[in-house]
């Protein structure tokens, strides 16, 4: 029963893990009117959808759905399962051409983008809330001008017209100042960084200090109360301990030897126990070195 519970939990976690992976995929860019832009594998220029894996793990899109209208099966494309090409790498892009054809292969959908002004990505169940969806006005679409996810001035992600199409690439084409350079511009002396970072380091170690100061006090209190109890309940043990403190030199030597063996991994491994083994010196002429050596010839 216990084994099945563990297995069940494991499977549940694995399922959650897989589900989380496909949830990282986003509709990153769409081009509805492709006149003089990215060509498909047949050399044709048709509207396309770009999916982007925002996560850091591979995602297999096989079995997932792309739909331009929810609930209408004729306008839904199921990405075929069992094709290695549908595995989307971490932070990678995948393009689907929307030519309304069902005979041109895995990356051609059976709908076109000018049908409804809506596109959604659904998981393998084909039901429930969309993983991602975008709406657009078909009439507003200009030739070779794509729409895509991009960060606006306030740092929010918006789906809007892009200055240039970027199939299989990031939509952020504007030159971005590296994070560390922004840090330098905002804090040219480095004093802000020093104060902040030292505060973090101190906080981490002060937290550890507080926890272990409390733990230490508790531990000492426990040790003391245990010691008091032991004294009260067993006086004979104290006497024995006192007697035990007067060790003979042989006993000290034996403890020393046991400790030596323990340190050199010759001793049995037992927690806080030292075992004194009797060493029997069994003599046999068969194992004696003398009998195995050639005798020197007698020259007399």
């Amino acid at each position, binding site marked *: 029963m216990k084994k099945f519970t563990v297995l069940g939990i494991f499977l549940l976690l694995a399922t959650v893990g897989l589900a989380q992976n496909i949830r990282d995929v986003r509709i990153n860019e769409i081009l509805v009117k492709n006149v003089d832009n990215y060509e498909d594998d047949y050399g044709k220029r048709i509207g396309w959808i770009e999916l982007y894996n925002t996560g850091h793990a591979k995602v297999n899109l096989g079995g997932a759905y792309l739909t331009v209208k929810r609930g209408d099966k004729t306008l839904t494309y199921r990405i075929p399962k069992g094709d290695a090409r549908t595995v989307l790498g971490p932070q990678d892009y995948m393009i689907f051409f929307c030519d309304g054809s069902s005979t041109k292969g895995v990356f051609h959908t059976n709908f076109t983008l000018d049908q409804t002004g809506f596109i959604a990505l659904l998981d393998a169940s084909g039901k429930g809330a969309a993983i991602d969806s975008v709406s657009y006005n078909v009439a507003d679409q200009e030739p070779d001008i794509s729409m895509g996810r991009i960060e606006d001035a306030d740092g929010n992600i918006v789906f809007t017209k892009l200055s240039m199409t970027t199939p299989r690439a990031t939509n952020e084409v504007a030159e971005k100042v590296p994070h*560390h350079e922004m840090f330098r511009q905002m804090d040219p002396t480095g004093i802000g*960084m020093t104060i*902040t970072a030292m505060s973090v380091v101190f906080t981490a170690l002060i*937290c550890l*200090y507080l926890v272990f*100061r409390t733990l230490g006090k508790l531990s000492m209190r426990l040790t003391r109360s245990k010691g008091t109890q032991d004294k009260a309940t067993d006086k004979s043990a104290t006497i024995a301990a006192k007697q035990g403190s007067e060790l003979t030199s042989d006993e000290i030597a034996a403890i020393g030897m046991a400790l030596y063996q323990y340190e050199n991994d010759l001793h049995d491994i037992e927690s806080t126990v030292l075992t004194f083994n009797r060493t029997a010196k069994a003599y046999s002429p068969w194992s004696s070195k003398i009998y195995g050596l050639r005798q020197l010839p007698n020259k007399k």
Partner: protein
Amino acid sequence: MLAEVSNTGFLEFMGNNIREFISFTGFANVTWGHLAMILVGCFFIFLAIRYKFEPMLLVPIGFGILVGNIPFYPGMEVGIYEDGTVLNYLYFGVVKGIYPPLIFLGIGALTDFSALISNPKLMTVGAAAQLGIFGAYIIALQLGYTAAESGAIAIIGGADGPTAIFLSSKLAPDMMGAIAISAYSYMALVPLIQPPVMRLLTTKKERLIRMKPPRPVSQLEKILFPIIGLLLTAFLVPSGLPLLGMLFLGNLLRESGVTRRLATTAGGPLIDIVTILIGLTVGASTQATTFLTPKSLGIFFLGAISFVIATFGGVMYVKILNLFLKPGNKINPLIGNAGVSAVPAAARVSQDMGIKYDRTNYLLMHAMGPNVAGVIGSAVAAGVLLGFLGG
């Protein structure tokens, strides 16, 4: 006649081949830069063998410098920076930051945190000594390094080789060789750098302070330390997780009492293997063409400064802390320097300085507290720098 022609052809053929062979040799491609770096490598090996300065590190690094500075004709697929070469594969562990966490696993398995647990206020000394990192960061910024480069250089002040390699591989990969060499060199020179600063900042009376002997630490406390330590520090600085996670895992293997074999492997063969690989490849990465630049000189200058500031931070912090402590609980400021990590060299400096002024005042056990706290502190500081400046 035919034989004569074929003989001439053969001689010409052999001559061409010999000429080509000579053009491939190190003698034909050597530059003054290569020779200078070979001398540096020999000097490192000399320091390690003659003066026993961090020999476990300086011997592989010194030899690595020799390996990396053997001149060769470009494109022979032997250099560390050439794709697909054996050295390039080994160097992958440095570039991708794989080796430093593995070394931290071993350090965790070798470190006894008892001194720290028995007197936990010494943890804050390990935090104070990280001032060296951020002091160097400020100076590096003023010298015109970018913020990412400054952060990578500044971590030298953490006096922790694996942390320095880990952070520089993320923030300034092209400077990693110089940063690693600088960090390890100054760690080896801790007995020369720190004592003058310590003497300058302390009075004779302070150097004679006797500290309370540490209390015994229970097994439970030792087991809880890596678990709580990880949770507290990694929740605060997740970017330091590779280093902190491995450090505390190694320590738990040691203290749990049930994974003796794993702890022995982590603290023995594993750390030895990784140390050889990291030493060799970091040394080999210092090819004259990439290493001998004005920036490298700046890195060495800033490294020395960072060690001085770190020592200053640790010692001064203890002096300030003493103002608030009762007479019996005062801390000897000579252990403040040990907060700079560099285990156990910095703690040995405290011990040596202590017995110089009082032959019966043994500070080693007390100094080990801030020393190991410095390891945690520098890993946290690296996490902060990576979090702020990475990406």
